[in-house]
């Protein structure tokens, strides 16, 4: 194990190099450009055996990935924001055909107005496509999660998105530990595709028309397999912990044992919030943090158990649903807790859209307010747009 300094993008590219996929098809988009730019250097320098396909759009990039995956290859790509939106149609095709493609993604806002900075509106808009979604808090985790996600994807035949926060993680240099190339190869193992379009001895039909008589059955089977991803993930994450010493649960709890209140959040904000929790704990305040790492499939029982212990929880959403009822994490969390025996008072903080900074003072304010909610036993304001001018 060696220690190196890398940005989130460099860490993702490095993991891709060690995975050494058969095919990478990609179109560059800020802020994920560097991932494939660095990776294309590895290809040019002969450090990987990958066939790199430079295409003219993200729609084509994922289409080429689908073709390569049906041919039986281990396939990866990278994108962000509008790029993921342009892949939207093909996301469903990859998932429906059970192709374990992995996307190294950088979370960025969706236009308009045009903006290149972080929020989670891109992946939240793809929640229903049938892809596993992992949200990382730093470069180390981005590196580790890409390797874990690939193995889970191949074992479950469910494609995966591993994401970092634009610029906050993608372009910030951090210290991280990396495995040796052989260790990564041994961990992921040789890829044995379920089928290959290049197997001329056993011709098959891929992606046929499927009408009223069988479409529903195929979708039901896909949903069932999707629900098994969490179990496989838990097993693979455990194996990875044995190899690396780093364990990443689907849902992370930080100093929650005796906490009265907690923040429920994802991505880089979780690491900022941990600093705040440490500071408040020193003052004797009973605060904790629950971090969502896997968001698809939704770890329903885990969220119910984790959040059920608190008097009050502040959900932090880095995107909105336009439902006039808060962000996607808030809506789904409320849904999960509806039939929980013990449930906390739940408020939503929509924050950081388009890369708006979220700092320690913002998170302190959230803890102050959520403690107040717990104390008075009722919610004054259900949804707060945090850090936006014109809002109290």
């Amino acid at each position, binding site marked *: 194990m060696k220690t190196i300094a890398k940005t989130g993008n460099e860490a993702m590219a490095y993991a891709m190099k060690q995975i050494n996929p058969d095919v990478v098809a990609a179109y560059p988009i800020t802020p994920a450009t560097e991932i494939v730019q660095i990776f294309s250097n590895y290809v040019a320098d002969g450090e990987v055996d990958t066939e790199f396909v430079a295409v003219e759009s993200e729609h084509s990039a994922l289409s080429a990935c689908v073709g390569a995956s049906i041919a039986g290859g281990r396939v990866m790509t990278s994108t962000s924001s509008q790029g993921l939106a342009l892949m939207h149609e093909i996301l469903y095709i990859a998932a429906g055909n059970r192709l374990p493609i992995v996307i190294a993604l950088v979370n960025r806002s969706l236009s308009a107005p045009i903006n290149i900075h972080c929020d989670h509106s891109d992946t939240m808009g793809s929640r229903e496509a049938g892809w596993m979604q992992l949200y990382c808090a730093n470069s180390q985790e981005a590196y580790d999660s890409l390797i874990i996600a690939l193995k889970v994807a191949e074992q479950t035949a469910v494609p995966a998105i591993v994401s970092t926060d634009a610029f906050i993680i993608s372009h910030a240099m951090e210290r991280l530990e990396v495995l040796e190339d052989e260790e990564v190869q041994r961990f992921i193992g040789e890829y044995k595709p379920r089928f290959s379009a290049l197997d001329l001895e*056993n011709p*098959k039909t891929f992606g*046929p028309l499927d009408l009223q008589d069988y479409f529903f059955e195929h979708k039901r089977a896909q949903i069932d397999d999707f629900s098994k991803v969490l179990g496989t993930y838990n097993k693979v994450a455990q194996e990875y912990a044995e190899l690396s010493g780093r364990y990443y649960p689907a849902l992370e709890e930080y100093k929650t044992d005796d906490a009265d209140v907690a923040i429920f959040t994802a991505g880089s904000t979780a690491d900022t919030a941990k600093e705040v929790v440490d500071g408040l704990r020193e003052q004797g305040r009973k605060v904790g943090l629950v971090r969502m790492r896997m968001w698809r499939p939704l770890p329903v029982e885990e969220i119910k158990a984790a959040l059920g212990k608190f008097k009050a929880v502040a959900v932090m959403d880095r995107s909105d649903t336009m439902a006039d009822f808060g962000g996607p994490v808030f809506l789904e969390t409320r849904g999960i807790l509806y039939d929980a025996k013990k449930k906390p008072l739940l408020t939503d903080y929509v924050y950081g859209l388009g890369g708006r900074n979220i700092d320690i003072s913002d998170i302190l304010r959230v803890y102050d307010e959520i403690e107040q909610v717990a104390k008075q036993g009722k919610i004054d304001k259900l949804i707060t747009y945090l850090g936006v001018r014109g809002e109290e």
Partner: protein
Amino acid sequence: MSMKFDKPMTWQELPAGCLIDERATSLHFKTGDWRSMRPLWDAEKCIHCLFCWITCPDTAITVQDGKMTGIDYDYCKGCGICAVICPPKASAIDMVREEK
């Protein structure tokens, strides 16, 4: 999916991802089963001008050695173009209501 089974399969029995273990399965896919009108061809009246053959939007008019031999109901959608284009003096094709 065009494969025919003895009885309909449940979702637990299906191969994942709608994968079909053979090729050219579109050949099994008969697209003429949603017709509401059916063309009836009268071999006696037919003058074998083949206007119906050339204007059929599918390939439902069967022809052998330059002569019309009939209509392939597995693919005919019942659009009626053949009946309209058939020369009035011959009037060899009639459209009738499709009945089971």
